[in-house]
């Protein structure tokens, strides 16, 4: 019972690792692709690489394959990845943010009626 539970837990962890690796690799592909039509071909190549090992059995083999994949992903990390503009490192990060709530801007400063 506990053996199968631990087996399932390990399989779930492996599946999550593969999903996250695929997600990062897909983003890396988009970083490297200059044009969209290049990205489509690269992405389908990447998908084929993942699908080739879809039915692999054996926990140790899968672990080894995931580690290989992660090593390859690390090797091909883009030096200047795309970051959405508002995110940390993006081109608009913290630029002209709205004033914090509770701050009142007086537009008729110096023209108050009581003067």
């Amino acid at each position, binding site marked *: 019972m506990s053996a199968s539970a631990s087996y399932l837990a390990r399989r779930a962890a492996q599946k999550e690792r593969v999903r996250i690796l695929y997600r990062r690799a897909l983003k890396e592909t988009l970083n490297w692709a200059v044009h969209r039509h290049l990205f489509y071909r690269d992405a389908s190549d990447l998908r084929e690489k993942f699908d080739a090992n879809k039915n692999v059995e054996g926990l140790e083999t899968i672990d080894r394959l995931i580690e290989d994949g992660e090593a390859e992903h690390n090797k091909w990390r883009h030096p200047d990845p795309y970051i959405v503009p508002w995110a940390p490192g993006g081109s608009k990060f913290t630029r002209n943010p709205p004033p914090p709530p509770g701050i009142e801007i007086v537009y008729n400063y110096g023209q108050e009626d009581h*003067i």
Partner: protein
Amino acid sequence: MASALRSAVLRHIRVPVAETLTLNGSKWSLISNVRSMSSHGDDHITKEEIIHRVLDVVKSFPKVDPSKVAPDVHFQKDLGLDSLDNVEIVMALEEEFKLEIPDKEADKIDSCSLAIEYIHNHPMAS
């Protein structure tokens, strides 16, 4: 002396600042709506628009039958996709709404309803 001068000057120079800055009839609208070059988006999308755009993205996914797509559909159980297709759809949604979703959170989005809720609650979705 200074205050007398000041009031004398101000009596002649009157710029209706509040009026010039008014857009849409509210003096706060300038702050809330137009922040050019700002890191904070000035367009807030409604839930209906989010639903419409999310469904559009899912329908245009090549492996999906567009007639099956509904706002409460589960990607893997109802649309017959696998986990990697799920990753691709979430990435397409990120691009559609100009978001960057952390990996762990993106991993949990597995249905249209979750995606709509996540995007609706995201302050930067546009």
